[in-house]
């Protein structure tokens, strides 16, 4: 009897998550495109719904809601469905849509990956590493280059001058072509035997001129594109400078200092873990409670508080990672998609999202006290969790250090670009 009630609760929540994923797809992701293939939207929403259900089950585990046997059943079922989707359905549809648009897509389909966990964890570690470094860099206004209005105006003037030069050259080309056409020197390939003989003996001076001018125009067009991108950069920096003078900006600046300390701490801990081959046995919640009880002498009901604190901590981690992922996906999607490739890209993003969530569950296990870990250990079975944590630390370290190097180089290079006249 209780199993039925539990199942109906789970199904209701799944329908709610499905609806949210559907709305997000329609309002945010695909807001500039026409949804012609509804199967894509369904797959995206289904993947999102089952991923969120996994997090929901963790929360239920901590809070002790629902029967433990029905929780176990739903875990198993959820995992089955999500692996089915990630390993078979999404790659199949990606293949289907790529094949129907094959001439546009150079990317080849990767082979099916059996160990979804490794890919997901690598991705998470890369993103965390980059995020940990980029976050303070973006928040702190210390790194903002000084941009004045005169800089922007100067660049705009250069851009318009380049466009004018392109126009004047194209006018010459158009006029030359017109006079050539009127004189009867039609600009076409020689056809037939007699045409070939003629083309060898006579030369068309007009067409030689044209190719020269065309090369100049190509170079100028490349220059205009560069100038356009630089001007966009300057405008963006100017906006950031103005934003940093507001209260919100100052608040984020302060947060940036805080996060930079946290980032240094994480890098340090990752190095220690690797060098000393240490894997954390206790989670932050229990350790925090131990510290307060042992060193600060505050006595309180460990069981009660550990449950609530775990719930809050895990809840924050889940909410921020879902929100962060959706925002990043949206930005990424806007940046690289066009009306032809949108289907493939959304499916790829659904794939990434699923893998990301599965590996989040793997890693979240470390943040929970022992009594809540059992279900994940039972369900995911023979996976070696220590390997994943070690792998996460390594990739995180590599990603964070390369991000620091990359941002340093990019920051150094940028001021010299704008100063050149």
């Amino acid at each position, binding site marked *: 009897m209780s199993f039925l009630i539990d199942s109906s609760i789970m199904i209701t929540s799944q329908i709610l998550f499905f609806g949210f994923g559907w709305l997000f797809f329609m309002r945010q992701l695909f807001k500039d495109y026409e949804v012609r293939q509804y199967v894509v939207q369904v797959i995206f929403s289904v993947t999102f719904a089952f991923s969120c259900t996994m997090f929901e089950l963790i929360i239920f585990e901590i809070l002790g809601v629902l029967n433990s046997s029905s929780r176990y059943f739903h875990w198993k079922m959820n995992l089955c469905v999500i692996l089915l989707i990630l390993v078979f359905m999404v790659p199949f549809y990606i293949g289907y849509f790529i094949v129907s648009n094959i001439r546009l897509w150079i990317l080849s389909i990767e082979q099916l990956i059996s160990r979804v966990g490794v890919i997901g964890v690598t991705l998470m570690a890369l993103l965390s590493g980059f995020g940990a470094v980029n976050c303070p860099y973006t928040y702190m206004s210390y790194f903002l280059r000084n941009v004045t209005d005169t800089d922007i105006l100067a660049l705009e003037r250069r851009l318009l001058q380049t466009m004018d030069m392109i126009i004047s050259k*194209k*006018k010459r080309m158009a006029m030359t072509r017109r006079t050539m056409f009127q004189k009867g020197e*039609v600009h076409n390939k020689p056809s037939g035997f007699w045409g070939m003989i003629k083309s060898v003996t006579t030369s068309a001076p007009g067409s030689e001129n044209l190719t020269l001018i065309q090369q100049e125009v190509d170079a100028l067009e490349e220059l205009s594109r560069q100038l356009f*991108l630089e001007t*966009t950069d300057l405008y963006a920096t100017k906006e950031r400078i103005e934003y940093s003078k507001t209260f919100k900006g100052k608040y984020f600046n302060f947060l940036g200092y805080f996060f930079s300390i946290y980032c240094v701490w994480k890098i340090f801990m990752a190095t220690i873990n690797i060098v000393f081959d240490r894997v954390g046995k206790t989670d932050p919640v229990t350790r925090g409670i131990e510290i307060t009880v042992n060193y600060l002498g505050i006595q309180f009901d460990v069981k009660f508080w550990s449950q609530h604190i775990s719930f809050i901590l895990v809840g924050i981690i889940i909410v921020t990672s879902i929100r962060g992922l959706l925002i990043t996906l949206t930005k990424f999607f806007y940046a690289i998609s066009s009306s032809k490739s949108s289907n493939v890209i959304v499916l790829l993003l659904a794939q990434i999202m699923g893998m990301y969530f599965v590996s989040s569950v793997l890693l979240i296990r470390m943040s929970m006290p022992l009594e809540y870990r059992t279900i994940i250990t039972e369900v995911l079975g023979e996976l070696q969790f220590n390997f994943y944590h070690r792998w996460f630390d390594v990739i995180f370290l590599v990603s964070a250090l390369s991000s620091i190097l990359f941002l340093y180089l990019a920051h150094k290079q940028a001021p010299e670009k704008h100063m050149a006249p």
Partner: protein
Amino acid sequence: MASLDRVKVLVLGDSGVGKSSLVHLLCQNQVLGNPSWTVGCSVDVRVHDYKEGTPEEKTYYIELWDVGGSVGSASSVKSTRAVFYNSVNGIILVHDLTNKKSSQNLYRWSLEALNRDLVPTGVLVTNGDYDREQFADNQIPLLVIGTKLDQIHETKRHEVLTRTAFLAEDFNAEEINLVIEKRYFLRDGNQIPGFPDRKRFGGGTLKSLHYD
């Protein structure tokens, strides 16, 4: 050559509707073989004989400024694009007949281009909602072009064309529906079948909208 007057026409529309193909077709009399994403702005020039055959015949250079990007771009991109909207003589709005959203976005495109002169700070104060009042005192001629007509199935063509007719009326603009298609590409670009007719019609509309 220096005596020929300058006519600047903007070509606006969403990504992938076929602006670069259209401009290439008008200026080079050839179909664009490998369309790629336009970064910034690409310009092309067409020589046009105004009032051809009459004693008032005058040759003009029509500059077609094909501005790339989307209406939802970051405000830094919009501010940079605004630099191209100075002293415009005409605007061509291009939308994809197979994609309804590209037609809806045309309102926002035209507001972005027209408000350039009204709000000198460069900040758009409207949220893009359509308001016929804003086009009432517009002196700049508008032309709405719908592309990819061939990709719509025969039976749906009538419905699509009526929808776009309303669109053109809203803007108080002239309308052309085009097929820009690779099948028409022949070795000698001047012999594209049916193209001379379209060229004349296109030129004709531009002529009638050209206030002197």
